[in-house]
């Protein structure tokens, strides 16, 4: 099938009002979710997921991708206006965005953030179109040993989503892997940690675990500290971003986009490191480097280009290899699974219309983001005014309905609350939740591919290093572990 045929097939799937309406609504939800501090793009995607059950796969996934794209941009609005990032990815935007807001240039900073985000989003989507198909065709050669080493490698770069502590990130990942062992054994069908309860035989419900980990802890934390969220939003000011501002920052935006694409295509790194790397590169090479941190518009452009450049690229490993690029794409995997789809190289053979439909939708999403973002910047006042002490009870009720709807099972609601308390305790102990969720998804895949390899080889471990692909992933894994150990040891050495 030629590229044109594939595009036409994709167009036949998304060439209707429902598909584009889903994408548009998703971006609106995402921008609002990202703009409310404490809600975050991750929670917005998780809470939207149950609403996709009744939709066709393409519309449901486009809705979630819209939420993802909108959420990443939306996070910059409170970062600039109230110095509180809506998403972790927007943390770098505060550095220059908030000083601009203090000078009365909020509108200019937000305008540049929007233009940089849309440009980076487009670059990221185009790279997805260029690389995902190529990577998927290469991955068709993968057997269980290759997938085992790939997933092992993906698990080592969980370090990227571990926040301040790699060790606590590793602990979180191991707990996620342990929880994934609950249910019937994959080979022999015997019970593992089911305690005789039939509800546990299929394993813990993925949606209950993810909503429990990402939404419920915020509900509990709100009870502990009901006034922690109160802040003051600044006005937009009278200055707006000009085309000349955009032209001067274009090189920075394109460099940031490429950094985002590169880091986003590596599973586990995510948007926040891309934003900070893009920002530091911009500061290193800029003529105005002395103004960085004091309200330099190029700094806002760099950080927003970095974090939005990731948003399309994280879908490269998701679609081509079936491995999530970050925590949000880990949630989006859930949407694929609910609709009976398994992301990975075979999807490019069996569901080529869906793949190209998604790619077309993603390109259109950059335009929608520009429209929605322009309105959202002016309407943030209304979003900021939603009382969080009413919003959080609404989130609680939404979680209950959403989790129940997956399997029509009240047990899943109980699992969600239990996971919520685990997530809250992890939050208090500063153990990041993202490695837990990624490991919970990758755990069964890792074990399944390992045991399939052992069955293939008659338990000969040498099959795990049977060719250049496995050698590559083993080498990458070792390098990643060395880098992780070195970065963990360095602060201790300095402290000592």
């Amino acid at each position, binding site marked *: 099938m030629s590229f044109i045929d594939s595009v036409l097939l994709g167009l036949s799937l998304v060439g209707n009002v429902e598909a584009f309406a889903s994408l548009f609504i998703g971006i609106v939800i995402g921008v609002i979710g990202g703009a409310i501090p404490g809600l975050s793009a991750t929670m917005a995607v998780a809470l939207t997921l*149950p*609403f996709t*059950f*009744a939709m066709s796969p393409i519309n449901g996934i486009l809705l979630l991708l819209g939420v993802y794209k909108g959420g990443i941009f939306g996070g910059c609005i409170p970062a600039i206006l109230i110095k509180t990032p809506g998403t972790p990815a927007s943390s770098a935007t505060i550095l220059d965005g908030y000083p601009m807001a203090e000078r009365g240039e909020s509108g200019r900073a937000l305008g540049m953030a929007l233009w940089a985000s849309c440009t980076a989003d487009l670059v990221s989507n185009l790279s997805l179109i260029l690389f995902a198909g190529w990577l998927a065709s290469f991955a068709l050669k993968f057997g269980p040993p290759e997938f085992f080493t790939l997933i092992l490698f993906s698990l080592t770069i969980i370090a990227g989503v571990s926040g*301040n*502590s790699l*060790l*606590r990130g*590793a*602990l979180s990942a*191991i*707990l996620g*892997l*342990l929880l994934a*062992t609950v249910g019937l*054994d994959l*080979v*022999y069908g*015997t*019970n*593992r*940690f*089911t*305690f005789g309860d039939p509800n546990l035989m299929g394993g813990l419900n993925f949606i209950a675990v993810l909503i429990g980990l990402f939404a419920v802890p915020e509900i*509990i934390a709100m*009870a*502990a500290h*009901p006034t922690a969220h109160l802040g003051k939003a600044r006005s937009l000011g009278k200055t707006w971003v000009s085309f000349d501002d955009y032209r001067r920052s274009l090189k920075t935006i394109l460099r940031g986009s490429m950094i985002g694409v590169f880091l986003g295509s590596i599973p586990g790194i995510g948007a926040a490191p891309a934003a900070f790397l893009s920002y530091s590169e911009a500061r290193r090479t800029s003529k105005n480097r002395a103004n960085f941190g004091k309200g330099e518009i190029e700094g806002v452009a760099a950080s927003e280009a970095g974090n939005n450049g990731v948003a399309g690229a994280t879908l490269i490993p998701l679609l081509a290899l079936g491995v999530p690029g970050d925590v949000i794409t880990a949630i989006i995997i859930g949407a694929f699974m609910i609709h009976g789809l398994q992301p990975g190289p075979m999807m490019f053979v069996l569901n080529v219309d869906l793949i190209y439909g998604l790619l077309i939708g993603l390109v259109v999403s950059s335009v929608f983001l520009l429209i929605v973002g322009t309105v959202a910047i002016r309407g943030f006042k209304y979003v900021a005014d939603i*009382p969080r*002490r*009413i919003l*959080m*009870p609404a989130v*609680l*009720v*939404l979680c*209950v*309905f959403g989790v*129940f*709807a997956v399997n*029509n099972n*009240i047990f899943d*609601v*109980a699992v969600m*609350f239990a996971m*919520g*308390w685990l997530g809250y305790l992890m939050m208090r*102990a*500063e*153990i990041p939740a993202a490695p837990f969720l990624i490991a919970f998804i990758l755990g069964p895949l890792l*074990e399944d591919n*390992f*045991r399939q390899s*052992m069955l293939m080889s008659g*338990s000969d471990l040498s099959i795990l290093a049977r060719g250049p692909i496995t050698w590559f992933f083993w080498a990458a894994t070792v390098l990643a572990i060395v880098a992780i150990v070195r970065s*963990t040891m*360095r*602060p*201790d050495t300095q*402290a000592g």
Partner: protein
Amino acid sequence: MDINRRLGLVSLALAAVLCLAAIPAFVSSPSNVRNIVLSPTFWPYVLSGLLALTGVILVFTRYTEAGETADGAADSAEPVPGAGLRLAGIAAVMILTVLLLPRLGMVWTSMLAFAASAFLYRTRHPVTALVCAVLVPLGLYAFFAHVAGVAIPQGQFVRLP
């Protein structure tokens, strides 16, 4: 005792419980397994070993990793008056939600959970909270029951169309 050491000790205790009690008792393995690596217990034992290893490293690692500041730790530990009571309250709301779902139905239980949690959060908009407590579950019921076709539990008392 710093946070890493406490986490390390908890990890070691959890690994010990898994290896000595939980895996032998709650993971069944057929007697005809040809090789240890194919056994259903192999993976849980490997993970327990990794948990113990992480625990040991955590015990011997000081809490001085990149990006950590004493200020940040102090902020998160700052006590808020009545926090313990409110946490117990939200836990009770969650437990009661699960227990009441089959009896009262999802809509009525959600209305009560909404109102109770808004009260716990000491909302400054009690009337809006009560209106939302009624409208949000009804709206969600309308979507999930009539659009998504989900069989929402109706309870034993008042049934909705």
